[in-house]
């Protein structure tokens, strides 16, 4: 991760690969603590990578709601403490931020192997956040889905997106999620079911919104040595926050300016990541994007350059992002199907993309996937864009 914008560009091989991954399913697990979820994912990732106890020189844990020293508790339970453990909170992008720090720790030469994991156990219902002052909750100005609804309305207006097309995004992701054993919702939905589900905030219905839930994901990063086939290399891991001025966005301010030309945090992170890797959106074969709601997925596609600005309606109409289309988006089922455990969601994408790039994604496999993008954006605002290459 680069903490400042770099001049110039060109292909940079940052020499970090994913050595192994682990995942605890996303869902509701009443009998398990967040520490236990993390232990399961971390053990699996270390075993997958063949990394023994003491085999990593730093650990970064993404989480938002898990309280004090949550990552320490996971590694303490496993008897694997001693190395630096850093807990990272960057909203929905926490896992992406943790991954970026892990990549940087290796690139700096300080570490050969780094453990990165994300854990979460969300309260049920509308996400309540200490981000909002109490008076904003009291006045009804802290309703997260209402902010999503305003953004969706703007997208419908600016990009000729219909209500049916918003529903189609949810239908697509739920169809993809049927094949994902790590997803919370594994039933297909029809367009009518999505449109007829209860309205939460116009234009968004219940099935157009993801459910906060629980889960964990872990990734072992390692300095790339040699040129063996079958490895997955991190080409870029960028994190950006918002620029001042816009009123709509995951930074949810109370006011903003009449200025629509400001790049969003996702656009900033995407620009940095593409520049670091020396590739563009046209080079990608598989993508996982933030789909907190159906509108967010379409806006993410525009911001990442997967379609033109204002082209989200056409993207859906031409079915370009469906499985079998030219660039499948969220083959895992996305957050709409998996649910959203904030700190784990970004690394859940990375785990999915690792499997995709190794041809190990089973019924969800995107054939011939070689370059992949993972994107998360959330409270702060924070946006992370990760580019992976399978070799």
């Amino acid at each position, binding site marked *: 991760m680069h903490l400042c914008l770099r001049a110039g560009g060109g292909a940079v091989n940052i020499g970090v690969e994913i050595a192994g991954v682990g995942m605890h399913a996303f869902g509701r697990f009443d009998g398990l603590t967040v520490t236990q979820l993390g232990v399961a994912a971390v053990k699996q990732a270390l075993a997958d990578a063949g990394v023994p106890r003491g085999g990593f020189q730093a650990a970064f844990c993404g989480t938002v709601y898990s309280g004090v020293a949550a990552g320490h508790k996971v590694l303490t339970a496993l008897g694997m403490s001693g190395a630096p453990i850093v807990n990272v909170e960057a909203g929905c992008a926490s896992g992406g931020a943790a991954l970026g720090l892990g990549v940087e720790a290796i690139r700096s030469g300080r570490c050969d192997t780094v453990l990165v994991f994300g854990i979460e156990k969300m309260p049920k219902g*509308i996400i309540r956040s200490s981000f909002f002052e109490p008076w904003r909750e*009291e*006045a009804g100005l802290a*309703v997260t889905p209402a902010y999503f609804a305003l953004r969706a*309305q703007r997208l419908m*207006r600016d990009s000729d997106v219909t209500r049916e097309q918003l529903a189609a995004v949810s239908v697509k992701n739920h169809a993809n999620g049927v094949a994902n054993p790590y997803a919370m919702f594994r039933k297909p939905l029809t367009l009518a079911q999505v449109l007829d589900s209860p309205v939460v905030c116009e234009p968004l219905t219940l099935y157009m919104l993801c459910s906060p839930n629980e889960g964990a994901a872990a990734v072992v990063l390692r300095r790339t040595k040699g040129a063996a086939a079958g490895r997955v290399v991190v080409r870029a891991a960028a994190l950006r926050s918002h620029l001042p001025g816009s009123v709509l966005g995951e930074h949810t*301010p*109370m*006011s903003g300016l*009449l200025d629509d030309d400001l790049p969003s945090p996702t656009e900033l992170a995407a620009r940095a990541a593409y520049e670091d890797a020396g590739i563009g959106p046209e080079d990608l074969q598989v993508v996982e994007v933030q789909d907190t709601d159906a509108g967010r997925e379409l806006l993410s596609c525009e911001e990442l350059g997967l379609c033109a600005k204002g082209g989200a309606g056409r993207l859906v109409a031409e079915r370009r992002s469906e499985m079998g289309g030219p660039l499948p988006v969220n083959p895992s089922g996305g957050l709409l199907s998996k649910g959203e455990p904030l700190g784990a969601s970004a690394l859940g994408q990375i785990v999915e993309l690792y499997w995709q790039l190794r041809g190990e994604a089973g019924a969800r496999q995107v054939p011939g996937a070689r370059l992949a993008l993972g994107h998360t954006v959330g409270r702060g605002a924070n946006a992370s864009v990760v580019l992976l290459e399978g070799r």
Partner: protein
Amino acid sequence: MQTVPVTAGLFTLGAAASLLAASCVACARWHFPASPDCPYCSADGCETRAVSGGATLWLYTGVRNRPPGYAGEVPFGFGVVELAEGLRIVTRLTEADPAALRAGMAMRFVVAPLHVDSEGRQVCTYAFAPGEAP
């Protein structure tokens, strides 16, 4: 019944009730809620002033389910209005039915009741209602 604002500094009460925002002495841009520090250009010394109260509706939705931490009535309207000062403000709308609203319609600042607190006071907040400002 005594009327109190949901928090201090957002608006004034009484016959000449008005919404308060701040204008930056360096870049002349407005922000809300008012703070001495400019959230756009980082200058300090922003001046708090009453805004005209006239606005047009930009984005809108309705909140149907009672959100956590909220003590007022549901449903209620929620949206973004554009002030003549070049400022977009996140606000409650007095109209809870989105079908009764349309983008670009004239809106005006009002003080809206929220709930009665444990001391028997009427807690109120700023909101925007359809119609021209007086």
